[in-house]
């Protein structure tokens, strides 16, 4: 690879921020793939976009709004039922502090 933009260390950092546990082999694999993508971005960067408005989303419609009206469709039990652990009132997770 002539044009390395992302080191395996940086891949490891991004992975840890995303709570992903990657083997060294995977880190190298993804570094390669990500570098290919970044190289392609360089290609796109060759185009002059000075007068082009940035597009944040390919979806063309805008301004989807909701009225400020209360809707309750599910009971607490139904919501808590989806959690790995709960005590009937709270979601229970491994202690964090």
């Amino acid at each position, binding site marked *: 690879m002539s044009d390395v933009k992302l080191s395996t260390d940086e891949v490891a950092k991004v992975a840890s921020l995303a709570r992903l546990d990657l083997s060294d082999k995977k880190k190298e694999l993804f570094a390669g793939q990500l570098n290919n993508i970044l190289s392609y971005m360089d290609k796109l960067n060759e185009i002059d976009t000075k007068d082009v408005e940035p597009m944040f989303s390919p979806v063309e419609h805008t301004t989807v709004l909701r009225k400020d009206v209360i809707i309750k469709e599910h009971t607490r039990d139904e919501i808590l039922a989806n959690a790995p652990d709960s005590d009937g009132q709270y979601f229970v*997770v491994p202690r*964090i502090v």
Partner: protein
Amino acid sequence: MVQFETVIGLEVHAQLKTNTKIFCGCSTQFGKEPNENVCEVCSGMPGVLPVLNEKVMEYAAKMGLATNCIINKKSIFARKNYFYPDLPKGYQISQFELPICEHGHLNISYEDKSGEPCKKRIGVTRIHMEEDAGKNIHSVAENASFVDLNRTGVPLIEIVSEPDMRNAEEAVAYLKSLRSILLYLDICDGNLEEGSFRCDVNISVRPFGQEEFGTRAELKNINSFRNVHKAIHYEVARQIDLIEDGEKIIQETRLYDADKGTTHSMRGKADAHDYRYFPDPDLVPLVIADEWLAEWQAAQPELPAERKVRFEEDFKISEDDADFLTAEKDIADYYEAVLDSYNEPKKVANWIKGDFMKELNQSEVGLSECKFKPEMMATLVEMVDKDVISNKIGKDIFNEIFTAGLDPAKFVKDKGLEQNSDSSSLEAAVDKVLADNPNEVEAYKGGKKKLVSFFMGQVMKETKGQANPGIVSKMIQQKLS
């Protein structure tokens, strides 16, 4: 020795008074059972889509208008990524590029350390919309954390200032001014203790004359204006000490400890601030129609600064009084309601600033629950003004009638507290006091004219404070001349 300058920027999170959350129809009602106000959207179930509450857009724009911001015609939402159990999706929906409001300012007036009145313009960098996080309870005994998502998705606006403030007085004045505007707009209840108005203080120091900023610390967990003041003073001293000892300031988040009056490092993970913002593909861009903006602009209520000017002009009261009376919307409303019944602006202002505020602060209930209605206040001021009761009696009975919400006219009548202007009975009291104090009478005649206030005091005592002071004073002087 090097003199240092403090530089302060503030981030305020204001909870908006909507019925429902920012991206789903769950109620925002405070104090419900844990996880009662939770649905598939705000609990972060896979495949759900957030939809913006139109009131959140309206309230954010109104705050922008009130702080002289440009309202961006187009704004977008972003994901701020971090892992914490109070944030079930693993990201907070916020705004990063293209927030709804930018480039505003606020004019503040305050007294500096020496009590000098000062004015300053503080820049408002941006106002953006975002969702609040939930609450965790940690149990060592059970080795678990318990998560309540009722607050998850409650709408917030974050108001970010420019680093324009140079001391604690300016910071507190700015915060009070923001809070006051939020209350006038009726879009936030402004409660610091309950966390519906939260402020983070970014603070650094630099040698006077230095252009670039020093390394800043961000202070969190400050829940009163007084503590903002204390936290800033502590942090400035801490940073100057470090620099003078040749040490480096670390850019970090520090928590304020109200009991100790100190700040301490949050022992943050090194990458806690690596949020990897990107545009949220679940939300389409928000485009604000010109008609909406015109409508909101037209519906803006009178704001504190405008009301202050009106009070000064219409009621001919001092700038200080107008400032005080308009800072809180409900106080200003109360004042005007009293004037509706008794139109003596200066006298009413004095009573409100004095005894009324003292009792209100001590009673620890808001003005909305206060039993002492504006008409009662008007009656009291009028009775004192028209010599029905003395000023002293007015002050003496104030606590009782304020607390129980009693009609002052009836109370005074029932207790027989009317001022005594009947010269024959007053004369008897004056004669008795003069007869009882022959030494003082002698001294007065010998030239100690100041003793007139002693005699006044004695007559007041004799008449249980009900004597008309004007008549008594004249009477004493006549009798001793």
